[in-house]
């Protein structure tokens, strides 16, 4: 048994936004009247750990040392919260009091909440913490059994423990048997999703959805109630290729931070729906509680805004910046927290107040003025973020019958494969996970491999008033996606024409 050290060091971590800070815990036990103090801007969830630790130590057959127990958690200037420090604190006390052997040369990382009977529980944010802890090169890494999923997502190496007793066995000679976690074949995309063949007779929207998926283009669908706008959003999620391993981890980490160990690992792309009553905090995230918003949660997936015309203008304008930068920034105490928000934004709404504008016949009762006023709810700068516009009509009787008749002919899987190939083309061209909608280059035409012919054709179209000047670049990007989707390396005039059809002529 090694000599009783006056101060023991052990490491743990806490999540902050999308990042994690590794903190060092120093535990000192000095003789005197028994006290327990934790210092380092800790909130009450950490200070309350006294009771948990005391009881857990006793349940696992150890003693709470008699004397002043002082635990300092650094960096001391950062506010910390969460019960994840329990295990590290308990082990630190055992080290400091000499109840388990402590070798100062070897760095130990531990996290997890203790229950009174000594068992270890997971806490939210594990995936973020483990991601960081895994790369720090600790000698001993102990995590709760419940955080196994998070460990798998981060490709982490360490040891899962069920209770404090098991954790202490690790420090015996040859007691540490680390396990290498990795992500295996994750659940495939559930085929319960709606098939794209459901969009019978809505050729424009069908194509719009495919192109939106193929180039990660934001999309706006306008149509009467019941024309299948929500269905379109569900179909879109069905034709997106599954998340790859790193994306799966990234998505899981965020959901895990929100929901705790209950979150499931899935390679399904997230689909988040927002409705007009969404608050800025829910949309972008809350800086005080550091909870990610819907935009961050839709990262690598789809953000679907239903009834977009009913959204307060202020909320829509809040989305402008994140849509442009593809990340959400939250500010707290002078620190910026960045959540990636690489997503397809799909807005759906009515084309006019009564919603019947695109319906056959003259079912729309809105005057031109009312309609114009209605559409001005979407500001110009907001529309600038949207690449594809499509109108939808209610499905005709015949098509309705067909829709449910031949459900066997699922087209979505084939489209999904084609979209995946299209993504590969884009990633090869731009190097890395960049799509036609998001590629940023000083010379866009060169980056997208567009010929002079195409550029001049596009400006011809613009000069004929088919789209505005700001639509020029969007049209080129969409035309590039069309060519990529069809597997062609050259963009043709027909591609540009098709892209022009998806511009909003009337908005």
């Amino acid at each position, binding site marked *: 048994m090694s000599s009783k050290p006056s101060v023991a060091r052990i490491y743990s971590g806490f999540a902050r936004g999308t990042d994690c800070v590794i903190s060092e815990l120093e535990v000192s036990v000095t003789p005197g009247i028994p006290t327990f103090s934790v210092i380092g801007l800790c909130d009450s969830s950490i200070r309350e750990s006294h009771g948990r630790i005391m009881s857990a130590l006793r349940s696992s057959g150890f003693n709470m040392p008699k004397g002043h127990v002082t635990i300092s958690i650094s960096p001391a200037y950062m506010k910390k919260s969460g019960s994840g420090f329990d295990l590290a604190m308990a082990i630190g006390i055992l080290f400091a009091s000499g109840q388990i052997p402590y070798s100062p040369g070897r760095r130990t990382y531990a996290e997890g909440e203790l229950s009174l009977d000594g068992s270890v529980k997971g806490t939210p944010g594990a995936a973020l913490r483990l991601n960081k802890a895994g790369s720090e090169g600790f000698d001993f890494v102990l995590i709760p059994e419940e955080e196994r999923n998070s460990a798998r997502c981060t490709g982490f190496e360490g040891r899962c423990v069920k209770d404090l007793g098991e954790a202490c066995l690790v420090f015996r000679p040859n007691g540490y048997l680390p396990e290498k976690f990795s992500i295996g074949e994750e659940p495939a995309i559930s085929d319960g999703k709606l098939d794209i063949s459901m969009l019978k*007779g*809505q*050729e*424009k*929207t*069908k*194509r719009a959805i495919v192109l939106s998926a193929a180039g990660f283009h934001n999309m706006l669908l306008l149509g009467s109630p019941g024309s299948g706008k929500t269905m379109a959003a569900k179909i879109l999620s069905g034709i997106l290729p599954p998340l790859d391993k790193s994306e799966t981890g990234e998505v899981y980490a965020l959901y895990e931070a929100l929901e705790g160990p209950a979150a499931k690992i899935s390679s399904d792309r997230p689909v988040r729906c927002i409705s007009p009553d969404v608050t800025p905090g829910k949309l972008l995230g809350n800086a005080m509680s550091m909870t990610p918003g819907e935009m961050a949660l839709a990262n690598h997936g789809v953000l679907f805004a239903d009834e977009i015309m009913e959204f307060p203008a202020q909320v829509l304008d809040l989305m402008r910046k994140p849509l442009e930068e593809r990340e959400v920034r939250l500010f707290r105490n002078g620190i910026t927290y960045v959540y990636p928000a690489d997503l397809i934004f799909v807005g759906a709404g009515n*084309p006019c107040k009564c919603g019947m*504008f*695109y319906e056959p016949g003259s079912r729309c009762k809105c005057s031109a003025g009312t309609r114009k006023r209605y559409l001005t709810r979407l500001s110009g700068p907001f529309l600038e973020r949207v690449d594809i516009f499509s*109108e939808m*009509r209610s499905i005709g009787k015949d098509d309705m019958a067909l829709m449910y008749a031949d459900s066997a002919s699922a087209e979505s899987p084939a489209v999904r494969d084609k979209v995946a190939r299209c993504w590969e083309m884009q990633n090869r061209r731009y190097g890395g996970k960049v799509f036609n909608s998001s590629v940023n280059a000083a010379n866009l035409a060169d980056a997208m491999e567009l010929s002079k012919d195409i550029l001049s054709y596009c400006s*011809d*179209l613009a000069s*004929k008033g*088919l789209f505005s000047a700001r639509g020029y670049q969007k049209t080129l990007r969409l035309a590039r996606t*069309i060519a990529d989707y069809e597997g062609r390396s050259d963009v043709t*005039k*027909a*591609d540009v*024409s*098709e892209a*022009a*059809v998806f511009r909003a*002529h*009337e908005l």
Partner: protein
Amino acid sequence: MDYKDGEMMDFYYTAVLMNTAVDYRVIRELFEKGDVETHRDLYGMAKMPSTKIKDLLLSPQSERKLRDWLESKGKVEKACEEYMQLGKQYGIQVVSSLNRMYPVNFRLQTGMPKVLYCRGRTELLKQCSYQGSVAVVGSRNASGYALYATERFSSEFSTKGITVVSGMALGVDRKAHEAALQGCGSTIAILAGGPDNVYPPENAELYKQIVSKGLVISEMPPGQQPLRQYFPSRNRLIAGLSDCTLVMEAGACSGTLHTASFAAVQGKEVFVLPNNIYFENAEGGLKLLEDGCCVLYSSENVIDSVTQSIVRRRLEYPDLMENEENIGGNPVSEASNREKLDLIRLKADKTPDEVTDEEWEALIEDELTLKSLDIDSLCNSLCLPFYRISDLLIRLQMSGRVVLENGKYALTFR
């Protein structure tokens, strides 16, 4: 601005008609006998010694009238000088039947004035022939309802390139011009007096606007006061210039009814805005409806009627419409066009790959003739994939043959 010799002769012709006993009957006789080929030959005839009149073998009345003219040649020349003086002062242009600008609708009818005096954008006369025109006429003290309808219809037509023709009177006429000016400004006011003569004076501001954005025309020479007896003749011109006539409101004995009956005589459709049967000022209009005029309840019917008359003009008088760009070298008759389309359709069914873009475009245009369609319906009815349709539609849009309106593709009125 100086007038050319030909134009001077046009003035002279009007001066003869306005200041001597010579009238349309004499002129018609001269034309029938082959003594003159165009109205401008009258200028040459003035030099003829009065003894030679007998050689023309005219009827005794005409002979007397001609003699009267040749005796008062000085008066005619003085009047002609005066007209030209005023014409120069107000920038009045002369359009005669020898001019390409002369409206095709006037050529197709007898008894239309040979010389028109215009102030404003004379190209509107041409636009009338190619893109159609609608006469919007009605009561001077119209009800709010009639004025509202006038405004709606006129601005719509003007926006679509259909010229709104009216008489610049108060009430409906005024509203029709105002609304048309709000659109593309394609409106023509036909005045009873000379084109420089603002009548009624309340419309002075409107007159200015029409002169700058639209067109004012008259058969009367500059300086001529609008006399009471000229108004029916003016109404005849309103009906004659346009492809159909809309009667917005007409009392039991209104000048508007003249316009309507002229239009009917000329074989043009008359649309009447239906009105309250207990409203006295609408009696005339309701009587017209009883006599079988069309009910004006949507602009589509009017546009259909205008389109038909343009098509008829194109098919029956291709030489008059020759300088229209879109008609091409040899206009095809409607029947053979239909056969051709059927052939393409057959080809599209069997071997869609062999159909050329031009043929597809023709099919799309054919689909859109009856009504405007959205892109999804076009995909379905032509069985073409979306990317083909979109390409074709954009090309048609580029060439101005198709426009996107309210989410639907429509043929342009050209």
